[in-house]
């Protein structure tokens, strides 16, 4: 019984952590809080977004056309291997419940665990919440494992779409050329990386909002420009898009 409560507490702790770290997850977090006792998949969906952002750029870079990035590709796979191997060593179990026990064991030491479980679990909760706020790596590892479970259960269409989501990126050369034409002076590589990433997030926001618009209007099929324009209008109201020349957009047609 105590284990179930501690598991729920640990998970709600995770949810709060995820919320603080990534407000992006707010729609998912709400569904999580409502259905905390429900299946693993809702939790997986919320952590999916976090992981996507963490690992996305590695795949982005492995697909770019620069010569430098061929070496970076090797380094990226090496780094990923390093990270996943440390996962295998440190995460001794699959559920939050077991890692909590491990933390309890490592904290308390040896002999009195079996005798005085209740107060130690109470202590461990507070300590563990501190530890969880510090050990982001453990959270990340758990999320990665859950992501792996989720991705392994994807249908083929979902896998295809997920691969496109992770791998698609703007070509750095074009972005660099565009920005240099605008500024008139050279831009550094970090700036190009940052701008490409932000542009991709921007596309994602517009497309998701447009899909919402389409759903509200009860239509199906590919997105139409009218959905995109309505999405942009809504995002502007929410100040998600910078708006230096409001008149230019509508004269283009």
């Amino acid at each position, binding site marked *: 019984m105590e284990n179930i409560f501690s598991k729920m507490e640990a998970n709600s702790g995770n949810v709060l952590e995820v919320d603080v770290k990534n407000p992006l997850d707010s729609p998912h977090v709400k569904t999580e809080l409502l259905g905390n006792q429900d299946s693993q998949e809702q939790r997986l969906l919320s952590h999916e977004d976090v992981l996507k952002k963490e690992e996305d750029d590695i795949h982005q870079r492995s697909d770019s056309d620069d010569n430098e990035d061929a070496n970076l590709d090797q380094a990226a796979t090496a780094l990923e291997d390093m990270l996943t191997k440390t996962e295998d060593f440190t995460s001794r179990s699959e559920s939050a419940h077991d890692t909590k026990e491990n933390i309890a064991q490592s904290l308390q030491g040896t002999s009195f665990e079996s005798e005085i479980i209740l107060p130690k679990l109470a202590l461990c909760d507070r300590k563990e919440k501190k530890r969880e706020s510090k050990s982001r790596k453990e959270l990340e590892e758990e999320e990665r494992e859950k992501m792996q479970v989720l991705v392994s259960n994807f249908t083929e269409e979902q896998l295809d779409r997920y691969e496109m989501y992770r791998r698609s990126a703007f070509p750095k050369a074009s972005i660099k050329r565009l920005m240099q034409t605008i500024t008139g002076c050279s831009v550094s590589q970090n700036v190009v990386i940052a701008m490409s990433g932000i542009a991709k997030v921007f596309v994602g926001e517009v497309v998701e909002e447009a899909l919402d618009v389409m759903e509200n209007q009860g239509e199906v099929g590919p997105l139409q420009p009218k959905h995109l324009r309505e999405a942009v209008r809504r995002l502007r109201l929410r100040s998600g898009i*910078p708006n230096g020349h409001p008149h230019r957009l509508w004269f283009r047609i």
Partner: protein
Amino acid sequence: MAQAEESFEQFEEEEAEAPLGATLSGRKRLFSKELRCMMYGFGDDQNPYTESVDLLEDLVIEFITEMTHKAMEIGRTGRVQVEDIVFLVRKDSRKYARVKDLLTMNEELKKARKAFDEVKYAGIPN
């Protein structure tokens, strides 16, 4: 054939010389392929409409242009630096988190590559 090539070259020259703001949105499509993959990844149909892709490309270019102009006004005027971009997106949590992640990952990858190269150099005498 030669005439067609000449006119084609002239057309290209005009495109290259013309100012970017007005014509780029009407002429060459920079991101058609990548945008299609991206739209599919974000939830659209597998074959999005060409008009949608064009509209999105214009939106992206406008977005990048706006950000660049604003970044040029912040910090060191006339130059775009990473800190300026981070400052501009500080209100938007998604973009801010994404930029932070990307830059952190980039640093980690640079370190990994450097360490990898050093190991390679150290391991050669074996």
